[in-house]
């Protein structure tokens, strides 16, 4: 009789322990998911490192901001974009040029240092500001602005390359997305969109 009592008690405690375990597991999973979601959420108002110190997007409020995600080893798409933007910039008035900037955010912080990025950017135009951050952080910034990229290991001289979308974004003076020039942009289409962004009331 006593034995049976003891056995049923231990059965109860087993059930309690089992339920608690399940509950804790579920809680843990919930908490874990929350962390993961936060990790994967996009960042709108970013702060990244420029050659002259940290720069946040908010500090450009009142200006037109172009944004491009690229990397120095990019042989074609990136230099073509910078050439096109530089050509468009050269058609702007000095007043307009004071109020516009292209933020070049590297997708390859592993290989791109800010000095090389500065030299590279200024070769095209002085209004191009190179920015660098930790890869995880850049991933979240890119996520918010719908830019896709992934690192791909390669056999051969490059070791790895970065597949990336070629979006060129224009933010208005309030820091809101004005246009996404998508994959195909020319100096003419860039200039037209910049002029339209300038026409918006401040």
């Amino acid at each position, binding site marked *: 009789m006593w034995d049976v009592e003891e056995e049923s008690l231990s059965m109860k405690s087993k059930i309690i322990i089992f339920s608690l375990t399940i509950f804790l597991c579920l809680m843990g999973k919930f908490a874990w998911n929350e962390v993961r979601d936060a990790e994967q959420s996009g960042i709108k108002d970013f702060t990244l490192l420029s050659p002259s110190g940290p720069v946040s997007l908010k500090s450009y409020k009142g200006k037109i901001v172009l944004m491009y995600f690229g990397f*120095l*080893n990019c*042989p*074609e*798409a990136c*230099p*073509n974009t910078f*050439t096109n933007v530089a050509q468009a910039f050269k058609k702007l008035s000095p007043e307009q040029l004071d109020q516009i900037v292209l933020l070049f955010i590297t997708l390859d912080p592993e290989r791109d240092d800010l000095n*090389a*990025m500065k*030299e*590279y950017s200024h*070769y*095209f135009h002085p209004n191009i500001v190179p920015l660098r951050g930790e890869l995880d952080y850049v991933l979240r910034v890119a996520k918010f602005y719908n830019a*896709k*990229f*992934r690192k*791909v290991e*390669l*056999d*051969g*001289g*490059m070791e790895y*390359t970065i*597949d*990336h*979308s*070629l979006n060129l974004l224009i933010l208005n003076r309030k820091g809101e997305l004005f246009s996404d020039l998508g*994959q195909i942009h020319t100096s003419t289409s860039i200039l037209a969109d910049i002029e339209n962004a300038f026409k918006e009331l401040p």
Partner: protein
Amino acid sequence: MMKLVTLMTVAMWATLSLADDLEISKSVIKLVPPASKNTAGYLTIKNNTDQDVKLLKVESDIAQVIELHTMMMENDMMVMRPVEFILIPKKGEVELKGGGLHVMFLGLKKPVVKGGKVEAKLIFNEGKTQRVHFVVND
């Protein structure tokens, strides 16, 4: 003596005919900022022979490593991958150009300058080779 002359004639004829077999044009190297360690080269290869020809390799002193690459849009992303060879079909031509097949110069030993000439050697299958001058241009 007669043999030597014949041999030389054959050798000259072989060289000349090879030049005719494969016609190279529009050989350009992309001008990139001095901070760039890599650049791309483009050219058109016309194959006048009755046999397919494969471009296997490019050799030049300007870069540490030279590879053949292709480029394409995939899932909204620009994707670049090395290729083992570039096939130039018999009586056909292949254009290496922006957004597609190209010669990738990795680890430039010195910056390229606009208008500069770069000497290179194209290596095809069956030991065929051909010299080419690339002109640096944007």
